[in-house]
């Protein structure tokens, strides 16, 4: 029961834009207090929303860049594979300092939508406008089996003219945010699925993109890494990045600013227009 309360409390702090580090500190303190006292959080602190409100009044919120300029605008995206229309007229706008989630059932075109936004495949109709540098993390793959993590960082760094030493250091620092020490002498093919995804994610953030597209990047993550992942997204958002995450885990939607639900609405199989939810 404590875990549920703490999770709701943490999400509420995040939603109220309490700085990531401060929120983590407050949640840890509350968890320690509950563990030591053995009390019921609903009795000790009250409803998590109410307690989060009191915390915000006490410590304030992080200055956010919102509302920032539009970084990604996908308009009227339609995609057909043969006779099957997987996307019809999907539209999404993400501003600097926002996280957007793309949700929907399996096969509803979430990854296709993201790949169109990344320019990896062409739509049958619609257009995408991106302001600034683009980063993309695929659902799987996207790494070189026989290279070390450091070599991946060097490879990505060289693309932007970053020297080897700084590229390695930046890669290791970004990996550490996900709770991974990346400096080992292990080829990518020998990494576990979750660690390999950490490498994947680290590569996509290494170029400091203005628009970051993530296609279910948390496959294989353990609980701690999953929390670190969302914390890192919040940090990037607070630094002004526009982030789009494809996800099927709806329990994290309270941590995002906009939701694009691609689930077909009609049982006949016709696809409804893309945007059906979201918070300003």
């Amino acid at each position, binding site marked *: 029961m404590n875990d549920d309360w703490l999770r709701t409390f943490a999400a509420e702090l995040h939603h109220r834009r309490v700085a990531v580090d401060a929120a983590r500190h407050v949640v840890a303190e509350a968890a320690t207090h509950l563990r030591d006292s053995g009390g019921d959080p609903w009795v000790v602190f009250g409803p998590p929303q109410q307690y989060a409100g009191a915390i915000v009044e006490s410590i304030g919120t992080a200055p956010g860049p919102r509302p920032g300029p539009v970084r990604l605008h996908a308009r009227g995206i339609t995609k057909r594979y043969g006779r099957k229309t997987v996307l019809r007229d999907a539209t999404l706008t993400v501003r600097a300092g926002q996280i957007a989630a793309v949700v929907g059932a399996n096969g509803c075109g979430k990854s296709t939508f993201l790949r169109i936004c990344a320019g990896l495949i*062409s739509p049958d109709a619609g257009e*995408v*406008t*991106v*302001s600034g540098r683009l980063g993309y993390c695929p659902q799987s793959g*996207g790494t070189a089996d*026989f290279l070390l993590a450091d070599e991946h960082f060097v490879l990505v760094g060289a*693309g932007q003219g970053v020297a080897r030493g700084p590229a390695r250091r930046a890669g290791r620092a970004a990996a550490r945010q996900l709770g991974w020490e990346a400096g080992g002498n292990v080829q990518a093919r020998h990494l576990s699925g979750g660690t390999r995804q950490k490498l994947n994610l680290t590569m996509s953030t290494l170029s400091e993109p203005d628009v970051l597209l993530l296609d279910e990047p948390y496959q294989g993550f353990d609980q701690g890494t999953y929390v670190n992942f969302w914390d890192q997204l919040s940090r990037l958002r607070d630094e002004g990045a526009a982030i789009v995450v494809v996800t099927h885990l709806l329990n994290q939607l309270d941590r995002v600013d906009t939701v694009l639900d691609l689930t077909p609405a009609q049982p006949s199989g016709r696809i409804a227009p893309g945007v059906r939810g979201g918070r300003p």
Partner: protein
Amino acid sequence: MNRLVTVAEMTLRELLRRRGVLLLLLLMPLTFYLIRRDAYLGQSVRSLLLGVGWAVSTAALFATTAARELEPRLRFAGYRPHHLYLGRMLGLWAVGLVISVPFFLLPLVDGADLRYGGLAAAMLCSVGVAAPFGMLIGTLLPRELEGTLLLLTVVTVQMLIDPAGSGAKLTPFWSSREIATWSVDHTDEGYLTRGVLHGFAVTALLVLSVAAVASVRLRRRRHLRHLPVG
């Protein structure tokens, strides 16, 4: 320049770590050479060159297929298409040269009476053609098995076709065969000239084809408009 060198270096690192595959690939030229050694030296050397071409083009195929998912990401990181395919090609040529050295020394140790300058030129032609040839197949065919079967077909045709026929000139490794004939049979200079010209022409054509296919595959799509950060 740094991007080219980095891609070339990583290609080299990747290939040199695939030790099992490399060893198996090296078996083919060696077997080709040894199996015909008792019959006729010329056939043996020509088979050796074809084996080197096979080994390098198969390595190129594997490297290209393995990089298929990575390359679009490297485009986001700031690479242009030519950094990626030229860098990879440089790495493959370097691997090809390394692979060639023991096979160049093999007839020498074997005491064969050859024009060794010609053998070196034939090796260079073989490696020069093989890298872009394997890359082209790897770019066009997404799966290793299909690419390997196509390569095997080409090598078999190359081995069985009448070298004097006009159709032989359309096969990619005809150059090294012509130069090898000059080297082994001490024929006139025409063989060397034809071989070198063919080698240059085919290499250039293959490099241009790889460039064209890679540029299309890694192009910026028309629906995506990039604006500077405002």
